[in-house]
């Protein structure tokens, strides 16, 4: 009886701690990425962005995604990889209009992915 209660409470504590940490880590990581994306987008819209800016953004994302692999389906991470990689190529070709579209998609993903961890009906079912 005592063993049951102790193990159940321990498991619940671990589980709750895990939920809180996951929520905090994912939201924080995407907020940071979102800030970087906004800055990069402004530069692309002003057509002053260089390939180095996008490569810096890509590098930042690569660092962040290591930890995110623990929490996110790897297909979603791959999707962001691809959109950023396309934006890098387009900026290197000075194709700013299309590069903005790619960055907009990444911004949208940065809003959508953390929301999939929220306690919502559509996320449960």
């Amino acid at each position, binding site marked *: *009886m005592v063993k*049951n*209660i102790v*193990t*159940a409470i321990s*498991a*619940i504590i*671990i*589980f709750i701690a*895990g939920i809180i940490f*996951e929520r905090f880590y994912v939201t924080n990581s995407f907020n940071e990425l979102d800030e970087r994306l906004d800055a990069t987008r402004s530069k692309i819209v002003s057509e002053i962005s260089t390939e180095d800016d996008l490569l810096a953004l890509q590098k930042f994302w690569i660092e962040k995604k290591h930890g995110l*692999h*623990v*929490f*996110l*389906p*790897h*297909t979603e991470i791959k999707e962001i990889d691809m959109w950023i990689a396309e934006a890098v190529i387009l900026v290197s070709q000075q194709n700013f209009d299309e590069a903005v579209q790619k960055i907009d998609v990444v911004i949208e993903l940065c809003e959508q992915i953390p929301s999939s961890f929220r306690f919502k009906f559509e996320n449960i079912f």
Partner: protein
Amino acid sequence: MLIIFLRTAIILILLMIVMRLMGKRQIGEMQPYEFIITLLIAEAACVPMSDVSIPLLYGIAAILAIFILHQIFSFLEQLGQGWKSAISGKPSLVIDTNGINFKELKKNNLDVEDLIESLRSTGNFSLDEVKFAILEANGKFSVINYPDSESNGELPLLLIDCGKIVNGNIKKIGKTKQDVIALANKKGINDIKNIEVMTIDGSGKIYLQEKNKIFTTFNIDSEDSKW
């Protein structure tokens, strides 16, 4: 390959720890919820183990959640008989001194053939040897025999099951449907639909139970009983 190996190792070790904490008994002795939990754990462990696009954490979280639920169920079971019955079910007395309790049998979605089969696995081949048979919550049968019961070494065959003649078994004993009906008539039963169960063994011993009546056994002419 290395990644799948590592994922499998992590899941396997976690499952072993969880199973040990659950104090797992043998598969056949599980309570219903424990059996469900075992199936769920297997599924939860399998998917992230083989699909590398799913984070391992998803499997770990699912197993941990199942473990928490198991502990909660175990705790509730210990709170009282009501909780225990609600979670694990309660034993059913399927055979008593009156014979087979068909109400309990139906409640457990069993028929006479299932009952006979289960009794055979407990070493009881004839229904009249059994004084009490209890279908436990874990699906096992517990049997108490009559003190003077002794097997005659013959295997009984089911002739009538819930008012329906079992044609295959009648053919085995070299008789016809009419012979069985005639035998029932001889016992004052005009409609075989009133017979819940009738068996015959190789020595000619008949086990007969009518609807809402106590069972009877009798012997018929040994010539008629050869099969």
